């Protein structure tokens, strides 16, 4: 069963001479529980694609279906709840709230829902993210890698159906990056989460079930990895 279905997605920035086709008629679908790696040169449209999948940007044309639901047919409020519960998004630039501390940043989607935070899961998550002892720190007191891990924690806290990560290991050393990928994979297996990761790191890409290569806004290749 396909959890994610993308149909003829295009995104065009600017007008006239300055026009940039970031995405050009992209279509593909992802079955539930699949781990997809998206690779491609810089400026090819990877982040744009991920943002549209995550419901934070709007496509110029085309459709995104999540669990059979047309994402951009929803109204603003439904979209907000969608972002809160269905997807977890890890930005290339971490986008934390500077006035909130680590715990608060991680639990933001739960708190926003007015729900109680599952303390044990939170502790487990913080442990997995190696952020123990940093719970009360503000983002500007953290290193780049730590900030990135906080934003991963924030994406995972609600156990979303789809996890979208934009170069989640871009700022990490190989040991740390390995741990993060493990973390994502565990969550992917344990909750049969669908995982889509943008990466420039071939070793990460090779751990995926499928590699989609994007070039100039188009899908250049789409390979399933057999193992």
């Amino acid at each position, binding site marked *: 069963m396909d959890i994610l279905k993308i149909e003829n997605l295009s995104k065009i920035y600017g007008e006239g001479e300055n026009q940039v086709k970031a995405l050009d008629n992209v279509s593909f679908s992802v079955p539930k529980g699949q781990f997809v790696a998206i690779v491609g040169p810089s400026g090819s449209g990877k982040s744009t694609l991920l943002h549209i999948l*995550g419901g*934070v*940007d709007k496509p110029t044309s085309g459709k995104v279906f999540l669990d059979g639901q047309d994402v951009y047919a929803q109204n*603003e409020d439904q979209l*907000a*709840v*969608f972002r809160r519960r269905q997807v977890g998004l890890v930005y290339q630039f971490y*986008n934390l709230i500077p*006035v909130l501390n680590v715990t608060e940043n991680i639990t933001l989607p739960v708190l926003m*829902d007015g729900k109680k935070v599952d303390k044990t899961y939170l502790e487990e998550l913080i442990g997995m993210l190696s952020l123990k002892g940093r719970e009360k720190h503000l983002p500007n007191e953290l290193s780049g890698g730590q900030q990135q891990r906080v934003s991963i924690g924030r994406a995972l806290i609600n156990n979303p159906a789809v996890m979208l990560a934009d170069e989640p290991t871009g700022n990490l050393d190989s040991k740390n990056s390995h741990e993060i990928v493990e973390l994502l994979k565990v969550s992917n297996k344990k909750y049969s989460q669908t995982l889509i990761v943008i990466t420039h790191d071939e070793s990460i890409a090779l751990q995926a079930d499928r590699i989609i290569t994007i070039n100039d806004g188009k899908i250049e290749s789409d390979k399933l990895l057999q193992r």
Partner: protein
Amino acid sequence: MNIFKQFTLRSLKENKTRTLVTIIGIILSVSMFTATIEAFVTVQNYLINYAEMYNGKFHVGFVDVENDDVSKITEDERVEKYTYFQEIGYAEIGSSNEYKPYLYIAGIPSDFTDIMPIHLTEGRLPENSNEIVVSEHLYTNSGVKLKIGQQITLDVGDRQWIELVDISDEEYEALEGDTWAKLTQEYPLRKAEGEEATEKIVNTKQKTYTVVGFCLRPDEQYLEPYTAPGYTAYTINEAGNTKHSNVYTIISQPTDYSRFNLDIVRGIEVNSLINHDLLTYSLQSFDSAFAGLAIGLLSILIGLIVFGSVSLIYNTFSISVSERTKQFGILKSVGATKKQIRKSVLYEAAVLCVIGIPVGLISGCLGIAVTFRFLSDSISTFLAELTDLKMQFVFSPLALIAASMISFVTVIISAYIPARKAIKINPIESVRQSNEIKIKRRRVKVSPLTGKIFGFEATLSSKNFKRNKRKYRTTVFSLFVSVVLFISASSLSTYFTDIVEAESQDMNYDVLVRVYNNDIHSDDDGLSDENKALINKLYNSLNSVDSIDEYTMAEAMGTEFMVDNEFIADEYKKMLKAVYSSEIAESRDYGTFVYNFIDDAAFKRLLEKEGISEKGYFDENNPNALVYDRTTHIFQTGEKESVYSVPFLDKDKFPCALPVSDIMYTFEKDGTEYYSFGTEEINGELLYKYDIPRDEGEDIDPSTAIYLSEEEAVTTANINIGNSLKEKPCFVTGQVNLIYPESLKESICAEYELDGYYQMRIYIFADDHAKAVTDIEQLIKDIGAGGKMSVHDYASEIESTRALVTIAKVLAYGFIVLISMIAAANVFNTISTNISLRRREIATLKSVGLTSKGMAKMMTFESLLYGLKSLMFSLPVSLGVTYLVYFVARDSGYEMGFYVPWDKFIIAILSVFIIVVLSMVYSIRKVNRENTVETLRNENI
């Protein structure tokens, strides 16, 4: 606590300066609202108290109502409460005022003073119908002295026309007109000058009263008319009294007073009295020009405050929100709904209000309470007569609620509008803040000259300015608002104080003594020899009064002359044109000339004061006249009153021999007296018509009429005019005042054949004017002129108008200071946040090697841009608002020149640059203190 609330509170804490400035902005505007509304309520309350105390609490009163008709008023369903006084009768009291010979006994209900005023100066109110309270002026005006506890027995009866006393029915039938009228207090004593009265008291009954108290003279307008022949004495009304009454009503719907009044007046045919002051002050009637002006100016004032506060608070929020656009984007991308973000912005607004509003209310109340405390003495002297009425600060919860509501709504709106914009854009755009930096290539072209003249830094800041138009627009807009606010607030204040000063300019002596003329109704007719002698007698004995510092007697004779067009002032012609929309049709126009004679010593003092040499002024054969020529003309067109203060003669022609002419009023030919009947054009020649006397409205009869040519009918003369006086002398009364020394009076009167009206007045200067008034009144009685002269204490009026000017100035300047503070806070706020928003840019520039000198250069250039841009728009708009203020003032009937407030423009221009530079320096220092890398890092989170 909700995560959004936490997020909001932390953001507020994080941006301490901005939060503080916003709170200060809220405090300032709340306190200004509070102060304005409280001041309004306090003054209104005072004026209402004053009106109630002085005029009474009634809305509409009815005069001389027949006993049978009283119930038609009191039973009208619109009447909520009423009171009355009923005539018991008149009694001879042995008065020395020949026009006021009676005591008028008025019966009142025991609760009369619940509605109408009786101001006891001594004793108590009557408790039964054998006790009376007597007006004080019975003694001061008529010389009849009574004591408390004294019993007086009076023959109390009705006033009756002599013709109606003991006449037969046939004779009664033959009588006409006025004679039918019932003689009440509304009718002055039936008595012509020097003759016996044609009325007497009839149907008398003997009554004995005990005097239990004295009161101030009852109000002339509402209780005892100035011309009433009886001094009022109040007693408790007798049962079974069937005479007419004055009925005073309080109605349940004061706004409908006019309808009610009309219904009653038409229904029972009586005259009515309307308590206009009370109705105006309680905002039930807007008849007077002053009410219109007050309300017009108050509206502009509140408008300015609202505008100032909205733009300050709006700016703060718009900056705070756009700064947090990225954060809103993040929140939205992890699933915050629009509603949640909106709520968090409104929560922020609410938090600021919770701190700002109470402080604002308290400081506003305190401020205005202190101001009124400081002003209360001035205000009390302003309304001097009832000194015991102090202005009390009125704590009005309603005003406070209104002020809080207005401010709260202002804050919420200011917070909501920018938030709505931030919420609308999609999350990734706000995360990237891409809408904030919508850069279009063509826009970024900077004139190469800028770089050459001001260097690379200027190019940079100029690009910044152009790329980031929205952010800069906020600053330019706040500067714009500040300049407009400052200039319009100061011109509002200037016009306001000008008006108040203009209203109070007229008097420049302390006490005026006038002799009553023969007919009490007009004092413009010739004085009788007896009265001339009396005032001379008084004048000669004034040197014995110690409390008087200086005094002058001025005699004035008036006449009308025609003056040639070329000698008439342009301002006068303009006025005629504006009022009658016509040029002066003929080649000349009539002016009223008043010849004033003052004693030689006073004349010399006057010359000295004005720095004019005596030469020519004491020349008996060909004397020069000093001229004071400026009159206030008031024209009433419909509800609008226009006031002009203009001269009649063209001053540029002075000194000169002014040719004046006059059409002969009478003309004698062959022993017959002919009278002037105007002019007529016959065969292209203007002829002057004369005829024997005719009844009013009748035209001339060609059989007896004669026509004279100009040379025959018009007499001409020259008046030698010396200098024009700059300052208005105390005694001038007419249009063109010619002033001569007393010693030349006879020769001048002979030369100009003066026989117009004749006035003698004594002008007195005294420090202790109140004592001087008492002393002079005593002296008048001593020389046997009691009741024939009036003594006016103008000094107390001057003091009161001066007090009014002080009040006006204090309030006006207070207002300017507060508005300027709001404006400055606004500018500071926008500039400092703007700079702190550019922390990253500045840090980046520094990280690639921008020196602090270069930075200073950049900021100087930016300040210049801000200043010039904002002044470019604000100066013309301020001029417009100034004109609007002028227009409102003029529309309310105060004629005055429009002028460009250059001084305020200069202050505004200087202040703009000072505030901009100071805010820049402050913000840059703050940014500089931060570590470059820190900043870059923080901005990247």
